[in-house]
């Protein structure tokens, strides 16, 4: 090849392709319109020239012989695998006609718009759903149990999300004088270097470790971090909240918390009524008093003082709010009520978790918990980063509250090297995510009324704008309160990847009048579609990326077949469905999204990326002190009280426990000893592989050779007990079903737990029914139920089920 013909296009990874949550700068080497090489962009501040295995395999991905290249129309029975290639015009006309028919007969809400992992799909799927008129955008995992629960929980207690600090807010990164190296970092259930989820670059933590950051690893597996941690706490899956309460116990008892932050920035001084257990409000004190205002006890005057939540200050100046108080307050009706402070109530809850009890629940020795908690609290600065196992338990919100209280009480929130509030770059938000309103939004509150789950779950009518997935699946079968007739599925493998109890999802697909799938390859789910539309990889599209910093553009480098980007596909249909559709061109839409940056899409493309300047709400640090977090520019947080809420006002409003606590998950040896008799091992799933993102990449040879078979990790003692040798095929089974895996006998897992890998299907096998690419062979989701979400509709028991294991005869064939 001659170098003269090679053109280099600078762009940003954001799925499809590597499958991750993106952000890496890459240089695509193009010759005669073909991708010949992809390299990391050495000038890009995000990845600094590095690149992962999945991005480096893009030459095998983009021109893969099995890539979908033209729209397909089903011509046989659903699942028979008979397809006819059609033009885009025919495809759009067909989909438009069928969707319009459903809208006319049943209403727009009767079509659900389903997406998978969070990436460059959310805005465009919302755009289409809202233009069609449906509020039912669905993230298809039970309990919406990936990231949304953590977002929602932090919006509940501190009004904004936060992440570990690796200087990602600044072009000079670790060398920027504003940044400080964390002395300690807790890596909580997170093997982030494999796959880079959560809009972060996993190896940033390795960068920090090389510069001196010490690690506390909280993980039942001997992860890479656990191996290198100063403290490794091997907890029983699903007991994280008890562990966090144990940490709080040590930090409070040993006086390791930050008094100033507690007094100044939390609602510790607000009063809780002893009779109802609820917050005392101004409306309790006086008729005409606001329910939105709260009350503290002033030690200076020995009387109640009102916290004006709107003004974010006490109504009387110079008061000395008591952090601890046993007081009697006069009410509007002349009676009195005994009260204590939030801080008293919080400490009383924490007192329920002495370390011997925490050891009993978690399996972590009390001494190790104490040492780790002290090390975290004494390290300045220190950060915590948590992974998706936090979401994958039904009592996710109380767990998040406990962990958030750790960074708050140690004053590590929004400081250099701590947990830094992560705003979208320049506050440019494409679509509604928890805590933010985007350019793409529902047309009216009216349109949102029929959203599934919004009437039942507090977070879903406060700041989660998706439907609740478990209820949505049920509704497909019950038609209650209205029928679901159509499903638009965009880069989302319900049967092979995201769907728990996947055979139930298949029944749902069969029941629907219309199924449209948009994807890059055929998979078990697309087999049930009526129309399949071929989507583009990130190299074949234009786009903008605003979460979080920097603001970045995605620039088209190549085109493949007739594949179109998600935004192009959805834009065309949205335009057809909505006579008032706001944008004429996709560039107009991009310009609208990034408008707060002052740049046009063309200008951003020329620059590649842009960092928000000092003083902007999306540039750290200490924004709660500077009045940069709230719309009214007052110091404080975007919560109902304006304070970090140790006691959650929203949770109280939703009729849920306002304080952090531990709840035993539904299917553990503790909660279900009856099941544990037959299924004695803890089944955990979803450990990450650097080769695959969830159900993707099984057809890419360079990646598949890294992990050719579905694997279950078994401890050597447990394997020996079951007569299982390394590399032998085993069944993993419970009351829901069974799936087949190759045993990886390893010390990485404890003897009482097995770790089964997820997302397994076999693109090399036959697609039509009954084989469906072997999707029923090794799909661990067949052992996990739907409908076990938490009380607030969030979380699912994915990391802690029960199972037994036994050898497959005849090597599993």
């Amino acid at each position, binding site marked *: 090849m001659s170098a003269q013909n090679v053109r280099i296009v600078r762009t940003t990874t954001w799925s499809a392709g590597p499958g991750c949550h993106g952000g890496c700068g890459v240089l695509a080497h193009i010759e005669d319109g073909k991708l010949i090489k992809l390299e990391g962009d050495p000038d890009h501040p995000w990845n600094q020239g*590095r690149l992962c295995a999945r991005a*480096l*395999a893009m030459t095998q991905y983009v021109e893969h012989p099995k890539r979908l290249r033209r729209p397909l129309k089903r011509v046989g029975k659903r699942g028979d695998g008979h397809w006819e290639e059609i033009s885009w015009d025919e495809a759009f006309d067909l989909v438009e006609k069928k969707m319009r028919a459903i809208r006319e007969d049943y209403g727009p809400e009767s079509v659900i718009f389903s997406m998978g992992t969070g990436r460059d799909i959310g805005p465009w799927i919302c755009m289409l759903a809202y233009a069609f008129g449906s509020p039912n955008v669905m993230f298809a995992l039970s309990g919406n149990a990936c990231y949304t629960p953590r977002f929602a929980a932090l919006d509940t207690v501190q009004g904004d999300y936060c992440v570990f600090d690796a200087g990602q807010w600044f072009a000079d990164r670790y060398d920027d004088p504003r940044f400080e190296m964390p002395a300690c970092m807790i890596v909580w259930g997170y093997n982030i270097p494999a796959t880079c989820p959560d809009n972060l670059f996993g190896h940033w933590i390795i960068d920090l470790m090389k510069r001196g950051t010490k690690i506390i690893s909280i993980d039942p597996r*001997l*992860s*890479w971090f656990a191996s290198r941690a100063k403290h490794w706490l091997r907890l029983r899956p699903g007991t994280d909240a008890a562990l966090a309460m144990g940490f709080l116990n040590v930090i409070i008892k040993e006086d390791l918390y930050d008094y100033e932050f507690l007094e100044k920035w939390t609602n510790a001084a607000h009063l809780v009524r002893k009779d109802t257990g609820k917050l005392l409000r101004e409306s309790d004190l006086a008729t005409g008093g606001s329910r939105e205002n709260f009350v503290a006890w002033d030690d200076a005057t020995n009387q109640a003082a009102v916290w004006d939540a709107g003004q974010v200050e006490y109504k009387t100046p110079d008061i000395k709010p008591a952090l601890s108080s046993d007081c009697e307050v006069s009410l509007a009706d002349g009676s009195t009520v005994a009260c204590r402070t939030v801080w008293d109530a919080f400490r009383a809850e924490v007192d329920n978790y002495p370390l011997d009890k925490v050891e009993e629940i978690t399996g972590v020795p009390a001494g190790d918990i104490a040492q780790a908690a002290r090390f975290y609290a004494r390290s300045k600065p220190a950060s915590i980063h948590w992974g998706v196992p936090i979401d994958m338990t039904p009592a996710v919100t109380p767990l998040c509250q406990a962990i958030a209280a750790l960074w708050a009480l140690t004053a590590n929130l929004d400081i250099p090297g701590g947990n830094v509030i992560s705003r979208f770059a320049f506050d440019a938000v494409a679509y509604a995510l928890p805590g933010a309103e985007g350019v793409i939004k529902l047309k009216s509150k009216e349109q949102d009324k029929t959203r599934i789950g919004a009437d039942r779950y507090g977070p879903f009518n406060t700041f989660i704008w998706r439907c609740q997935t478990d209820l949505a699946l049920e509704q497909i079968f019950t038609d209650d309160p209205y029928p679901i007739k159509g499903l638009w599925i965009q880069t989302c493998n319900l049967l092979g990847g995201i769907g728990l109890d996947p055979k139930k999802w298949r029944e749902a697909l069969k029941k629907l009048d219309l199924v449209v799938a948009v994807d890059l390859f055929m998979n078990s789910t697309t087999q049930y579609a009526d129309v399949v539309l071929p989507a583009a990889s990130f190299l074949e599209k234009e786009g903008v990326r605003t979460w979080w910093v920097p603001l970045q553009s995605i620039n088209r480098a190549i085109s493949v077949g007739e594949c179109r980007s998600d935004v192009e596909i959805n834009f065309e249909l949205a335009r057809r469905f909505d006579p008032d559709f706001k944008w004429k061109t996709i560039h107009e839409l991009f310009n609208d999204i990034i408008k707060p940056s002052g740049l046009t899409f063309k200008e951003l493309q020329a620059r590649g990326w842009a960092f928000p300047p000092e003083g902007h709400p999306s540039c750290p640090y200490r924004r709660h002190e500077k009045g940069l977090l709230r719309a009214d520019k007052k110091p404080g947080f975007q919560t109902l009280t304006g304070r970090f809420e140790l006691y959650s006002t929203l949770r109280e409003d939703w009729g849920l426990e306002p304080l952090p606590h531990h709840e035993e998950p539904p299917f553990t040896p503790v909660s279900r000893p009856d099941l544990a008799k037959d299924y004695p091992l803890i089944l955990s799933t979803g450990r990450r592989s650097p080769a695959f993102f969830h159900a993707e990449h099984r057809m890419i040879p360079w990646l598949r*050779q890294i992990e050719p078979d579905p694997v279950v990790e078994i401890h050597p003692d447990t394997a020996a007990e079951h007569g299982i040798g390394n590399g032998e095929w085993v069944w993993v089974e419970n009351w829901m079903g069974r799936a087949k895996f190759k045993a990886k006998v*390893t*010390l990485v897992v404890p003897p009482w737990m097995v770790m089964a890998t997820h997302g397994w299907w076999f693109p090399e096998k036959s697609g039509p029914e009954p084989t469906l690419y072997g999707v029923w062979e090794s799909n661990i989701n067949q052992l996990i139920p739907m409908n076990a979400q938490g009380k607030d509709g969030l979380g699912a028991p994915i990391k802690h089920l029960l199972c037994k294991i036994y050898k497959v005869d005849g090597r599993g064939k």
Partner: protein
Amino acid sequence: MARKPEYGLLIDYEYCTGCYTCQVACAQEYQWPTGMGGIQVLEVVQKLPNDKAYLAYLPFPTELCTLCAPRTKKGLEPACVKHCMAGCMKYGRLEDLSKELGNKSRMVLWSPR
């Protein structure tokens, strides 16, 4: 007579995370068919006292590794070194790398084929 090796790869396996970037970077650079490649990542899990263990990964240059002669001639780093996510691989003269080897523990110096 065998050529005297002059260049090598210094690996800091304390920080190798087993991300397999080096393997795929090599595959892309030379478009290796499945099963072939210039570097392979090995996993080692060692049992330690007190129920502990240590999980380590180690990139191993195979018989197909040329130390990226076509790249280094142009002044570029080998493909594996350039993309290494943990920044734990270094290419250079064996003489210089062997001095660096003494700077910290958990390192190996490879002098490939």
